[in-house]
């Protein structure tokens, strides 16, 4: 089991390196440089020249890349072109804030998705199943922006004014000090992600429930509760774990839109800002981070697969 995971880990590092080169090249392809992006309409040749000198933009591209990579390996994330301060200081708090949002959304949507999906499968064709599948179908079709706007209209601006519509936690204070402000962004992510988990869980459960061993267990007179918990559920988990992983990974990127809408001080806002400012250092760190999340959650999904699937478990020892 361990060698498989180690091999996957090595591949992941290579992928991350490739991502860093890709992102670096992509940011270079964007027209304009950080000095122009920052000064905008105020860019006179004199001010541009002065700023470019201050930002080391006159060094060759490969040198800037190697310097950045070298710094990364020694734990130095570099200096943000836009703020002039270290990237780690700029992003530390934001990464934490985004993680809080992702974790909160994950903690709610995974169990809810699994429960509703299972429930739906068990009540196949009945009213409860129709409501659950219908609702999740509609929600799955809506972009996160629409869901977010609808929630804000409903709960904070027009219909009821119960919840804050944007995050206003003062900088330096953790976002969870203001739990009310977390509700709507979390709920938006939950509503976007859960439908997929429900649908996958329902489909997998149905397949498992129709399989030979469940039938066998039932025929042997095992109580229904035990049939589901001991025989059906573990077999359904492996494929569902893949979907959950993809959804969690999606959230790491999709959180950008949600953070934008709720003025949430996470990496999403920082990323949009950094692209606008052509702040290569920050864009790279964030792109690598999102890539790392993808890789890690997929790795976790595989581990779940290996653990729950006896065939793979023994295969790993080859």
């Amino acid at each position, binding site marked *: 089991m361990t060698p498989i995971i180690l091999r996957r880990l090595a591949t992941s590092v290579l992928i991350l390196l490739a991502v860093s080169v890709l992102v670096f090249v992509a940011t270079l392809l*964007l*027209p304009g440089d950080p000095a122009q992006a920052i000064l905008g309409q105020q860019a006179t040749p*004199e*001010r541009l020249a002065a700023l470019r000198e201050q930002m080391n933009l006159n060094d060759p591209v490969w040198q800037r890349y190697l310097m950045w990579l070298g710094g990364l390996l020694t734990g130095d994330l570099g200096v943000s072109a836009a703020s002039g301060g270290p990237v780690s200081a700029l992003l530390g708090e934001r990464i934490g804030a985004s993680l809080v949002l992702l974790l909160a959304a994950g903690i709610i949507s995974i169990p809810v998705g699994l429960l509703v999906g299972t429930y739906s499968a068990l009540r196949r064709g009945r009213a409860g199943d129709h409501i659950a599948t219908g609702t999740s179908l509609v929600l799955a079709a809506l972009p996160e922006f629409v869901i977010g706007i609808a929630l804000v209209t409903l709960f904070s601006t027009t219909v009821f004014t119960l*919840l804050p519509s944007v995050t*206003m936690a003062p900088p330096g204070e953790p976002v969870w000090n203001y739990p009310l402000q977390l509700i709507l962004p979390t709920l938006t992510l939950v509503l976007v992600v859960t439908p997929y988990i429900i649908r996958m869980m329902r489909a997998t459960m149905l397949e498992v429930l129709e399989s030979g061993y469940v039938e066998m267990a039932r025929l042997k007179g095992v109580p229904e509760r035990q049939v589901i918990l001991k025989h059906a559920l573990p077999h359904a988990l492996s494929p569902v774990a893949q979907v959950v992983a993809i959804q969690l990974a999606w959230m790491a990127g999709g959180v950008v839109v949600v953070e934008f809408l709720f003025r949430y001080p996470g990496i999403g806002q920082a990323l949009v800002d950094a692209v606008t400012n052509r702040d290569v250092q920050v864009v790279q760190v964030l792109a690598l981070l999102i890539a790392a999340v993808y890789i890690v959650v997929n790795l976790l999904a595989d581990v779940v697969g290996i653990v729950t699937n006896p065939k793979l478990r023994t295969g790993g020892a080859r």
Partner: protein
Amino acid sequence: MGLALGLGGFLTACGAGPAAVLSAPGGAPQRGGRLRVGLAGGGAADSLDAHSSVSTTDIARVINLYEPLLYRDENYDLQPLLAAQVTASDDARVWTVDLRRDVLFHDGRPVTGKDVAASFARITNPDDPKSGAAALAILDEVAVVDDYRVEFRLNSPSATFDDSLGQYTLGIVPADYDPARPVGTGPFKYRSFAPGRNSVFVRNDRYWREAEPYLDELEILNFSDDDALINALLSTQVDAIGQIPLTLLEVIDADPRISILNAETGAWMPFTMRVDRPPFDDNRVRQAFRLVVDREQMIEQVLSGNGSLGNDMYSPFDPGYPKHLPQREQDIARAKELLAAAGYPDGLTVELVTAPIQSGAVEAAQVFAQQAAAAGITVKIRQVDTTTFFGDGYLQWDFAQDFYYTRNYLPQVNASTLPTSPFNETHWDHPEFTALVKKATATLDEEERNALIAKAMQIEYEEGGYIIWGHANQADAYQQYVAGLVPSRTGLALSGFEFRRVWLGVAS
């Protein structure tokens, strides 16, 4: 705070409905409270530097922290601020400024001539010029006469140099100024600052104006999205927001809790035609392009009716603005004639470079393309992002757009329509025009100067490279309990960001 806010909202929701809506406060200003202002724009590059503001949020902060010698008030009149008196020599080459004697910096030191000289030295530092430097090319030296008097010595005469001194980019800072310790003379003092997020300022108890400011605290919050900005206002998480999209004005105004500040400005968002390159090097083509514009429709569709008509001339508040020139109107037949005469009997195709450089810019490009089609002009719209727009191609596009806030004529000409101007996007170089401007710049007599300005404007009206179809209003929104905001012609949001006058009718 979050809890308190949520609870407040809850009470409003469960309260007596419309009766819970507060009426606008009247009477004498009350002291105290914190004003939370939401503004779109800014980011990690935000700064508190007195002299290098770039984004709207930068400008809002700078205006409340620092003060220049003069400033433009809400009527766009030039008023003394840190200067008690400004006088020009007969040849308009030396400007003497007497300072107010009752002004203290935030740290308690008095403002002296030495600080003024040091501030201007910092702005015009050739190795690191700041925002205001471009307009100060004619400044030779700032001589300190005594503690409260300085002389601005110019290398060429300028009858309107006092206008240059009234820019917010020229705040006076102490001689030992360090942007990491933002000390100025403004109504508010620095407390905290997080680039791209928010900044908090507190009342300057040493402020020289009687009683002002009324607020205890001022918080300026960045928003990267208009939806989030408006939602924050509607959920009472901020008290005032600057520059709302004009298309949403009516919707927001319908909310009884919200007041709107709708101010006429001299801001302009021209189409820019390069007069040195075909097809626009032929004045008949430029004339034709100006004649295809239905200006009223443009204001209706792009600004939702919130703007004033443009007549291809900028600086509508300048005392020299020629109001007698006929308003240019759409005339497709005449435009076709002109195009045929210029060698395009079957019309022509041009590329228009646009970007969301200002609310309405891209929409204006689209409306223009539709209107121009009637005269056989095919406009290919090339939309780029703002950074690309202001990148290498900026000031080089053959046909594009730009955006300027309110300015008087001569300073605007200096910025954009002389061969030496830093932002001459039309590549306008007209000897007769330049001579007129030069003469006007050196003429101290106001009436005479205005006549010269009117002549120069007329040349641009007849031959210029700008299509100026309108002047957009500046619309802001705020909660009913906020008092002291007045419409400002400057084009800067929320009373030109002069929060010293603002007070809160109820404790928030």
